[in-house]
């Protein structure tokens, strides 16, 4: 399996996808959470709007983004119609960029959820600490940067684990969006495993890749769970 070029593509894609997906989701989610925490009037409605994609299936998400990113009718054409005739946006069919379309759709689906986690974390921070800091003369950005965001560390941790977990499991989205294509350019281990086990009948290779996925997950999750359980015992 390690000699297969396709496996190389798959795990490089997973790394590219995970890094972009996680960093952007965290930034957007945190940013939105902080903005929403400023006593916004229509907070409930906005939250609902940000979060509803999480209720949808990755297949539905993939289907609609496939349509939006479609070079013939979608975003490319909108921009061209605005007068930028030479604008091209062909990531969906461009083997170099196809994995990033998965990032776009993934962020659309998950950043609202990340926002909800951070918002819950922000609401959980003791107001007295914030009052104490503002009496100490800290400005609002300083309070956020020095006091609140460090206080969200456990939330960051959870968010990272959950996003990583979504990233590694992301299978449906890729299938629906571009079927791991063009070619196998947006393959990730999850689709790799599926293709080899069920489309090609090379179950041995499929199992090998599944085992690798399991080992990576365990390596990440077990220490996390261990620390969670320990802290629960101390609490």
């Amino acid at each position, binding site marked *: 399996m390690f000699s297969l070029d396709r496996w190389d593509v798959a795990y490089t894609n997973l790394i590219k996808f995970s890094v972009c997906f996680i960093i952007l989701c965290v930034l957007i989610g945190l940013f939105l959470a902080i903005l929403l925490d400023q006593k916004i009037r229509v907070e409930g409605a906005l939250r609902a709007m940000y979060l*509803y994609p999480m209720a949808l*299936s990755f297949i539905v998400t993939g*289907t609609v983004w496939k349509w939006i990113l479609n070079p013939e009718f979608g975003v490319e054409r909108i921009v061209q*119609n605005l007068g930028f005739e030479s604008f091209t946006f062909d990531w969906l069919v461009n083997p170099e960029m196809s994995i990033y379309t998965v990032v776009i759709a993934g962020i659309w689906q998950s950043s609202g959820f990340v926002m909800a986690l951070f918002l819950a974390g922000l609401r959980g921070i003791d107001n007295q600490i914030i009052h104490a800091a503002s009496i100490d003369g800290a400005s609002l950005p300083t309070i956020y940067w020095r006091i609140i965001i460090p206080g969200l560390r456990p939330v960051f941790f959870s968010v990272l684990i959950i996003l990583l977990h979504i990233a590694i499991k992301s299978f449906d989205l890729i299938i629906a969006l571009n079927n791991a294509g063009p070619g196998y350019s947006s393959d990730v281990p999850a689709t790799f495993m599926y293709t080899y086990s069920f489309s090609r009948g090379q179950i041995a290779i499929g199992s090998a890749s*599944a085992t690798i996925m399991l080992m990576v997950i365990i390596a990440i999750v077990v220490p996390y769970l261990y620390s969670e*359980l320990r802290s629960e015992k101390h609490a």
Partner: protein
Amino acid sequence: MRKYFDNRRLGRIFIYTILALFAAYSLFPLYIMVITSFKTMAEIRGGGILLPPGTLNLESWTIAWSGSGECTQGVACTGMKGYFANTLLMVIPAVGISTLLGALNGYVLTKWRFRGSNLLFGMLLLGCFIPFQVILLPMAQVLGQLGLSGSLVGLTFVHVVYGLAFTSLFFRNYYITVPSELIQAARIDGAGFWRIFLRIILPISAPVFVVSVIWQFTQIWNDFLFGVVYSDSQSQPIMVALNNLVNTSTGVKRYNVDMAGALIAGLPTLIVYVIAGKFFVRGLTSGAVKG
């Protein structure tokens, strides 16, 4: 003082603008889905993707739901209604069974602790994180041995087993907040394991039941991978059908039918989200954020 006020005002405008922009980004695909599903193919080819349809054209919804009638094989011909029914037949028992068993697990894990119950809990947590792909092949063997391959019952079984880790976790996290003294009081009052579960524990579990049911419903309804692996053409669930509809290679691509299909597949979970969004969020965040 005045300047401060202006800055503040400017800041508020900035904040609201950003929030509105992101809301637009968030709603954009839904908007596209809805308007496209009501367009004719001619409108789609002719006009921009953003423009609303000239008239409400329901044809694509009919085709997506009950088929075009032009052929007899596959979802593109028969429509999604059969698969919608398949999914309902699977979702209802799967959600019910996994939730009840999860409640029982949570009860045992918190109130009748035994040697190794913490280890079991750790393994359950790990179970929540195991990628679907890892259990695909072993589960296929189990289903084969049980004679359930390619059937709705088999698929239901898979969802119950996989969902159990989550439901147990929900109930465990809820029951851990129920004081053990309540159980002790009931024991002194003469109630045993089952009676305490039925008469004391279940009646106070309504909130976590809602969370668990919504979570399981969403997960199972939205599942694609298990559906595509463990079902045959008769027992396919809706997400598999949608994917087949969209990725069908025969004939002209009908984007409006794709979008109507996507909406049909997405509506049940969207409705659940609109009705019970609060619980939905609680399910998602359960265990992720302390307290």
